[in-house]
């Protein structure tokens, strides 16, 4: 990670003449950001003129201390539920010694120089990196602002800075009994040169980090006031819906707009790169007119295979040698001579992300510039793509990153698909006409960019003592990274295809992990926890299969194979075993299953308890979770992310599947693509391992162990391993 605190280079120049405009250059002139979040509710600024620029604010790229005593933290990441509007201000407030009630969160503009994700090199959110990449950066930002407030007070009071203390937003000098608020000092502090170096707190002195400050967005999101892209209202705004090809890879050949244009309120019917767009005076009209379009598609390059054909091809490939992702010892040789070998084949379907807010954006082009309102997850990419489509420079595209109604990876794509569509439509409209483009749920479910479908073939061998001595793991499926800016050299292994498999923590002397990357016309994308969605499942379920073959307890089997360097895996397993009552009696028709996975630098172990009723139906009753994500910034947010990750993973393994017939997606909405609901949510308990390690992410790591923990509980209960997903109730009860 780049340790240079680049924002301060920019901050320095702006500090001498502090103005928002200097710091936030790259935004359209004057207009700051839409929304300011406060612990008590937001001020919505989008439709208003920005507050007058004042020189009396202490500003750096991430922190603004205003004369009204508010401290606003610029949030470079997308808030999509994971809690960045709460966690990131907590880090600043800690080093600043601010009072939580004075903290505000504001979405940062697209400006890669100031706001890039230090893990990506561009502005964007994903990979559970928000806190991890911001921790040092925001501590420094907070500490710098604090040092300047202290220096301002010291000069004002003519006392040594070292004698000044700061607590809960008040700067004090005990000996002279003087004190001042941040707001009172902001003007003077703003005139100072920021220190080149600042001392950060010893983590043992943290007073806010580690506490459960309430979510910054609680009030907006419980009163209907939170503004998502769907909610943007602009004067003269029109609405768009797009007809896209029913098969992936098809292109529009001809279209007949006659029936659509007859509908009252329809403004235009226009071909765009992804299909045909209808613009109308309401979304309802646009959708009706879209549905009335007569379109013929050129399907010469379309994907016409269905799930059965792909499955057959994948299974055939799984029997052949693949590209080596990891090789240690001689797995094939040892397997040939093993006392006992076991083979299991796994099938994973395509999965849609299906965030509650479907893809949507608002774009307005005026005077050679463009404004975008969207739940942008890759601001740098989105800005570049919109600029390219419109023939503008990236800096002429202003991005307003709004709250996103979930994403789970969907909004982070290198094509900026839904934003580019909106820009293409806006380009066809008279200058200054804002357009809101909305995908219907059907568009979303049928729209691709799925978690890829995979087949895994696994064989492992035990020696005479029941020790796991050889492990062969073949993975067959599409590459997520192929064709993206994150792709490796041509022909190289896509690390996301094998993450969770090639880095198996267990001490098995002979290992082969192989990959077959398939070429299928179905667009794929990262889906909450990426490769670990299938690799953690296959490996952790297979470990249980092998434990049973060896006649060993699944927990003891794992612990015995975890070397000292994987102490954090061991610790979460120990904690979850203790908290779940692992090994104690549960009663008839109930069983426990355990699983552990590291993803994105965080370690999570879970124990699932399942029950079976008289009809043979399985219910997940309870999941106990232990997580080690380094320093816990906000334990309650961490618990919430574990709960949500478990629910998201559970819904997928129990019910989630996108299937294709002759290249056509068979599901279209939540009736066919069923997701976890209230009555299926188990009781969840989350326990956090105390840690002094730098914080890692929590958005994704709750997902991977949930599926295998449940599958392992079902295995313990029924004796049948669950190797085909989603878990089919009929199969279980037969």
């Amino acid at each position, binding site marked *: 990670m780049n340790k240079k605190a680049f924002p301060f280079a920019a901050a320095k120049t702006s500090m001498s003449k502090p103005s928002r405009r200097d710091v936030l250059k790259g935004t359209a002139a004057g207009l700051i950001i839409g929304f300011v979040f406060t612990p008590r509710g937001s001020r919505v600024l989008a439709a208003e003129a920005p507050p007058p620029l004042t020189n009396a604010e202490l500003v750096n790229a991430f922190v603004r201390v205003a004369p009204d005593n508010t401290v606003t933290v610029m949030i470079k990441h997308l808030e*999509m*539920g*994971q*809690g960045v509007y709460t966690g990131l201000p907590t880090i600043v407030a800690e080093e600043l010694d601010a009072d939580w009630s004075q903290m505000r969160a504001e979405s940062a503009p697209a400006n890669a120089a100031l706001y890039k994700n230090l893990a990506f090199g561009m502005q964007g959110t994903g990979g559970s990196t928000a806190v991890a990449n911001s921790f040092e950066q925001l501590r420094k930002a907070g500490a710098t602002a604090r040092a300047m407030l202290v220096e301002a007070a010291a000069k004002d009071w003519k006392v040594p800075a070292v004698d000044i203390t700061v607590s809960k937003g008040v700067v004090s000098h005990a000996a002279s009994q003087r004190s001042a608020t941040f707001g009172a000092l902001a003007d003077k502090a703003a005139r100072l040169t920021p220190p080149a170096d600042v001392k950060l707190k010893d983590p043992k002195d943290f007073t806010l980090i580690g506490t459960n400050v*309430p*979510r910054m*967005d*609680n*009030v*907006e*999101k*419980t*009163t*209907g*006031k*939170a*503004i*998502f892209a*769907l*909610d943007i*209202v602009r004067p003269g705004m029109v*609405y768009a819906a797009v007809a896209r090809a029913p098969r992936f890879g098809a292109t529009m050949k001809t279209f007949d707009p006659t029936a659509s244009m007859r509908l*009252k309120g329809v403004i235009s019917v226009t071909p765009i790169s992804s299909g045909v767009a209808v613009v109308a005076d*309401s*979304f*309802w*009209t646009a959708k009706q007119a879209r549905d009335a379009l007569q379109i013929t598609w050129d399907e010469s390059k379309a994907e016409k295979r269905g799930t059965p054909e792909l499955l057959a091809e994948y299974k055939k490939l799984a029997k052949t040698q693949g590209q080596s992702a990891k090789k240690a010892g001689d797995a094939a040789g040892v397997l040939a001579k093993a006392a006992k070998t076991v083979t299991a084949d796994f099938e994973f379907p395509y999965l849609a992300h*299906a*965030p*509650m*807010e479907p893809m949507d954006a608002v774009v307005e082009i005026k005077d050679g510039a463009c404004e975008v309102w969207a739940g942008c997850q890759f601001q740098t990419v989105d800005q570049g793509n919109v600029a390219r489509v419109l023939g503008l420079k990236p800096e002429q595209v202003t991005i307003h990153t709004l*709250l996103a*109604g*979930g994403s*789970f990876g969907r909004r982070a794509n290198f094509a900026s698909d839904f934003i580019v569509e909106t820009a293409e439509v806006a380009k066809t409209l008279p200058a200054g006409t804002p357009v809101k483009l*909305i995908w*219907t*749920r059907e568009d979303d479910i049928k729209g691709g960019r799925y978690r890829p479908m995979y087949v895994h073939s696994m064989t492992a061998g035990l020696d005479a003592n029941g020790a796991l001595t050889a492990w062969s793991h073949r993975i067959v499926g599409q590459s997520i990274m192929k064709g993206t800016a994150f792709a490796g050299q041509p022909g190289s292994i896509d690390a996301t295809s094998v993450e969770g498999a090639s880095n198996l923590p267990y001490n098995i002397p002979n290992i082969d992990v192989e990959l077959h990357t398939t070429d299928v016309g179905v667009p794929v994308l990262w889906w909450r926890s990426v490769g670990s969605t299938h690799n953690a499942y296959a490996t952790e379920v297979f470990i249980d299969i092998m434990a049973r073959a060896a006649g060993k307890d699944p927990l003891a089997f794992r612990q015995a194979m975890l070397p000292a360097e994987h102490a954090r895996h061991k610790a979460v397993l120990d904690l979850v075993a203790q908290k779940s009552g692992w090994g104690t009696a549960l009663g008839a028709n109930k069983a426990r299953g355990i699983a552990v996975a590291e993803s994105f630098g965080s370690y999570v172990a879970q124990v699932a308890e399942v029950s079976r009723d008289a009809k043979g139906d399985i219910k997940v009753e309870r999941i106990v979770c232990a997580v080690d994500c380094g320093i816990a910034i906000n334990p*309650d*947010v961490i618990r*919430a*992310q574990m*709960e*949500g*990750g*478990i*629910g*998201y993973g*559970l*819904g997928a393994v129990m019910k989630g599947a996108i299937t294709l017939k002759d290249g056509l997606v068979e599901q279209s*909405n*939540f*009736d066919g693509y069923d*997701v*976890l*609901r*209230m*009555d299926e*949510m188990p009781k*969840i308990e989350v326990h956090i391992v105390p840690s002094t390690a730098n914080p890692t992410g929590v958005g994704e790591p709750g997902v991977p162990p949930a599926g295998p923990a449940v599958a392992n509980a079902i295995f313990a209960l029924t004796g049948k391993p669950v190797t085909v997903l989603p878990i089919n109730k009929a199969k279980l009860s037969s």
Partner: protein
Amino acid sequence: MPTSFTLNGQPVTLDVDPEMPLLWAIREKAELTGTKYGCGIAQCGACTVHIDGEAARACVTPVSAVAGAKITTIEGISGKTAEAVQASWQKLNVVQCGYCQSGQIMSAVALLTDKPKPNNDDIDAAMSGNICRCATYHRIREAIHDAATAL
């Protein structure tokens, strides 16, 4: 043909296609955006409003069907039950992305209005039509129980 009804206590007349779903009419014509679109086929509950006090899915309710009715949206809820629900939601940090929560709260308020002390089965029955992809179900259940203690 204009349709008249009461929206959050105010009389409104909307000149829209009578077949337009109430969801789009209140979002785009009345500009009350707290009620969300999630599926359009009454499968997810994001569009839940109260029609004459009953929870209903605005995405499948044509405007013509609410002529003369009293509609309440998330922006218009008030009273002891609504305040208790919102307070418990905030106290327990229920929300994550927050997009479905208007609908969740509208369903919860309707449940608690009907049954001030719901048990878990009541909660399952009343709330399983409201999808939350962040899976905040665990906290929604706790928050409903918590709100019930205040009623």
